[in-house]
């Protein structure tokens, strides 16, 4: 029994949420549908932990769907790289589901709650599928599944604020364009190599170095994925989508949605096209590096001038994605590892911040803007305390997870002679203190309005869990750091 389970883990992490999403839609009861969703996300998380243990032993698992031998059939590949986003997505979606319990029925009509949970699981299945698949076209399928599910989820916010419809529409159109570009790229590659299997693609690209179709195909794929990963300036769908989605959905999307696409980006850059070194180096240096630096500053500055807190956090996400792509663009083992470290840490940081802000919104029954926060810190000490800790983690204060990201990022850029990159990163992160401090100051300093808020354990439980993770991974980061270094080594080998 256990044996079969372990053998089928790579497919189970995708199938578990996918299948329950079909079941959940049939359950009209709010509590039961939530219970099933929680169970499903918990099982998915459990499976990914088991998968992690398997990876420590085998370091590479290939799973042929329906026993069709790759490269003919579709292959799922789990290795030390893929396991990082899988753990992030399954873990955060579990925490977000716990958080959804009280929040979701507040914002969504009773009869649509189970539909939302169904979409929720579908999105999770799509995101995990994106990571596990080793087939370039199957990847497109999952890309669409996760995008369409997320679009529908964002649109559900319309019951509270009609802006959500605009956000969802934007997300839909831009996402569809991105996916189309990606699939055009895949088509071109298929035309010249005759395969869709990624590992196979790697080998066949080997002797096609200056082929125009290859370069075009690469360009299409990369741009398509960059849209999904919200790399500046292709991020425009993101702030609205995060800001107007239902609260729990914002948490899920902010912490997980772009992580899978960032992983795909790394995989395409360093694994699929590893033999076209010139092409990759030029892309990294002339495209990704400058865009990332602009993203770091543009996102941060937008956040400083933003009044609506959810949008503020969304802008900050754009900047944080900039850190991750910047790390990739340096292209050394240490920097790619730093990218993965930050990918993990950013998920728990942003998850925590979104949970804190949306719970504040739940308590005050208003849209959370900077002016609405006045003096609330004293009315809700637990939420405020967690919010401050997560903010400090985002700012990269020592003893938090965010510091570890920053430390390795700076170290990687200094050791590849990029002291100026290091300084730019730090200036941008010092600027991020400005908007974080703006919120903390308002929460703490302004005169408190006379409102009494009873903090609800059902809401702050998940906040406390995720805040604890922020501190824990700041004090004992060896798991994340070692995992990321192994991932980076797997991705680029000992070449650099």
């Amino acid at each position, binding site marked *: 029994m256990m044996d079969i389970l372990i053998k089928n883990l790579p497919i189970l992490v995708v199938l578990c949420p996918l299948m329950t999403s079909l079941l959940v839609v049939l359950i009209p009861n709010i509590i039961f549908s939530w219970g099933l969703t929680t169970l499903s996300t918990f099982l998915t998380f459990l499976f990914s932990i088991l998968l992690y243990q398997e990876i420590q032993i085998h370091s590479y698992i290939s799973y042929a769907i329906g026993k069709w031998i790759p490269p003919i059939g579709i292959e799922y590949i789990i290795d030390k790289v893929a396991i990082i986003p899988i753990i992030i997505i399954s873990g955060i979606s579990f925490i977000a589901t716990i958080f959804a319990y009280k929040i979701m029925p507040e914002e969504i009509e009773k009869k649509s709650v189970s539909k939302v949970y169904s979409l929720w699981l579908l999105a999770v299945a799509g995101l995990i599928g994106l990571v596990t698949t080793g087939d370039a076209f199957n990847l497109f399928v999952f890309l669409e599944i996760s995008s369409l599910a997320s679009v529908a989820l964002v649109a559900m916010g319309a019951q509270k604020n009609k802006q959500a419809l605009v956000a969802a529409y934007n997300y839909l159109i831009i996402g569809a364009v991105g996916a189309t570009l990606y699939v055009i790229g895949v088509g071109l590659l298929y035309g010249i190599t005759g395969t869709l299997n990624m590992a196979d693609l790697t080998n066949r690209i080997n002797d096609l170095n200056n082929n125009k179709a290859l370069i075009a195909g690469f360009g299409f794929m990369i741009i398509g994925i960059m849209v999904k990963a919200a790399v500046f300036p292709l991020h425009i769908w993101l702030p609205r989508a995060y800001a107007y989605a239902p609260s729990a959905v914002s948490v899920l999307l902010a912490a997980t949605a772009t992580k899978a696409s960032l992983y795909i980006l790394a995989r395409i850059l360093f694994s699929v096209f590893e033999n076209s070194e010139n092409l990759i180096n030029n892309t990294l240096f002339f495209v990704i590096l400058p865009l990332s630096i602009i993203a770091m500053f543009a996102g941060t500055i937008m956040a400083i001038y933003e009044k609506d807190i959810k949008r503020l956090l969304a802008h900050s996400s754009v900047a944080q994605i900039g850190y991750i792509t910047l790390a990739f663009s340096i292209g050394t083992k240490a920097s790619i590892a730093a990218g993965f470290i930050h990918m993990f840490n950013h998920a728990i940081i942003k998850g925590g911040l979104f949970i804190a802000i949306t719970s504040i919104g739940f308590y005050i029954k208003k849209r959370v803007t900077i002016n609405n926060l006045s003096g609330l810190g004293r009315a809700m000490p637990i939420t405020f305390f967690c919010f401050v800790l997560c903010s*400090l983690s985002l700012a*990269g*204060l*020592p*003893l938090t997870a965010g*510091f*570890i990201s*920053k*430390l390795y990022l*700076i*170290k990687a850029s*200094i*050791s590849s002679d990029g*002291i100026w990159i*290091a*300084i730019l990163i*730090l*200036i941008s*992160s*010092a600027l991020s*203190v*400005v908007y974080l*401090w703006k919120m903390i*100051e308002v929460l*703490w*300093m302004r005169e408190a309005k006379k409102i009494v808020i009873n903090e609800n354990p059902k809401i702050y439980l998940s906040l406390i869990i995720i805040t604890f993770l922020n501190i824990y991974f*700041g*004090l*004992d*980061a*060896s798991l994340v*750091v*070692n995992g990321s270094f192994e991932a980076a080594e797997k991705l680029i080998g000992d070449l650099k």
Partner: protein
Amino acid sequence: MISIENFILITILVPLIVCVLTPFISKISILRDCLGPIGGVISSWGAFNIMRAALSNQSTNLEIIKIAEGISIGFKITPLGAIFGLVASFLWIFAAIYSIGYMKGNKEKNQTRFYTFYAMAIHAALCIAYAGDLLTLFIFYEVLTFSTYPLVTHKQNEIAQKAGRLYMSILVGSSVILLLPAIIWVWVATGSLEMSKNGVLDGKIDVAYTPLLLAMFVFGIGKAALIPLHKWLPAAMVAPTPVSALLHAVAVVKAGVFTMLIVLTNVFGTDLLAKTGASEWLIWLASFTLLATSIIAIYKDDLKARLAFSTISQLSYITLGGALATSMAIQGAALHIITHATGKITLFFVAGALYVGAKISKISDLNGHGTAAPLIFLSFFIGSLSIIGVPPMAGSWSKFYLMLGAADSNYIVVIAVFCISTMLNAFYLMEIPARAFFFKKERDINLKIPKLILIPTLITSVLTILLFFFIEPFQNLTSMMADKI
């Protein structure tokens, strides 16, 4: 027999325990208030034993948490750290007693929060003193900044908010943008975060880059308050006086100059500095800060503001001593950490006493009130003499060594700087007792100083005299520091 590792743990953990306990016993205010002084006694007992261990040349490496491969939070004993640790923890006893009197006398709100973060700041300062490597130093440097923010903005009004912003933006900004990359640069260059008595950078870094790296460190350590990073210190004076006394005359600013000295001696090493002349510009910058802020101090009528500028000027003495990089100058700089601390804390205590007693904060309001509170003004007089450097006050020792150091390194101009600054010190500090005792009284006020404020003030002023006679153990420590060079 308690092992030396445990003494380190006792010294740094006791303030943390006080910090954690305070909110839980906030209802019983007597117990809460007593925690500080008790913590101070235990902590300084530990610090005293650590100093004894440092004198007998014992060494230890204590790793508390291993964060990841090559990164850990660890502590060790250095002579300079032993001095700074003892100063911070010992003066905490008196500052804690003083705080009780001040907070009660002034009827401040949110006292529990105040005591909590106060202890937290002491914890951070002690962790800096015994930091085993550069990263531990940096981590607690930041913790110190963040834990003092609620203290600086204690009043929670518009002015406090503005001051808090300036405080955070200078201290966090400089340390994150410059200090952190400088530390990581050292890490990349030498392959470890270790510090050693003779410096670690010699031969590991291109000589052309040394002045740049040094500049990143110097301008990254905002707590040392060199021009143009000094503005946070006068701004921080909006905090209650016990904060200004212990934190902004002792713990925080001394953490800054301590870091500066550690970087100059244990990271760069005096040999490297002397060889490359990388620190020459720092001598001039420190001299300029020293004189400029002394002159500004003269024009400040607000007593705490004047003391703040005087502090900036005195901190530059220490930086200057480190930058001169001769054995004598470094000894003088290290001694100045103690002597200035005891002198300046007395002066701040007096400033707070006058505020609690009669809401006096301006120097021009002091005329003729000397007879109303002679002991307080006498304490101020003694503290001032020590800062000016008149024997038999402690401050004379450090100035003496600093001047010797300047002579050693043939910077005659620097000796002149010291002399001019001494005159300026005398000019702006002596005005206060002079006005109090010799000027005509303009109006009658009721100056009543609570005992809990008066006693710590007297004790610290007596300490400045005692230190003059019992400076030997500290001198041994500083010469141990210098010997290794």
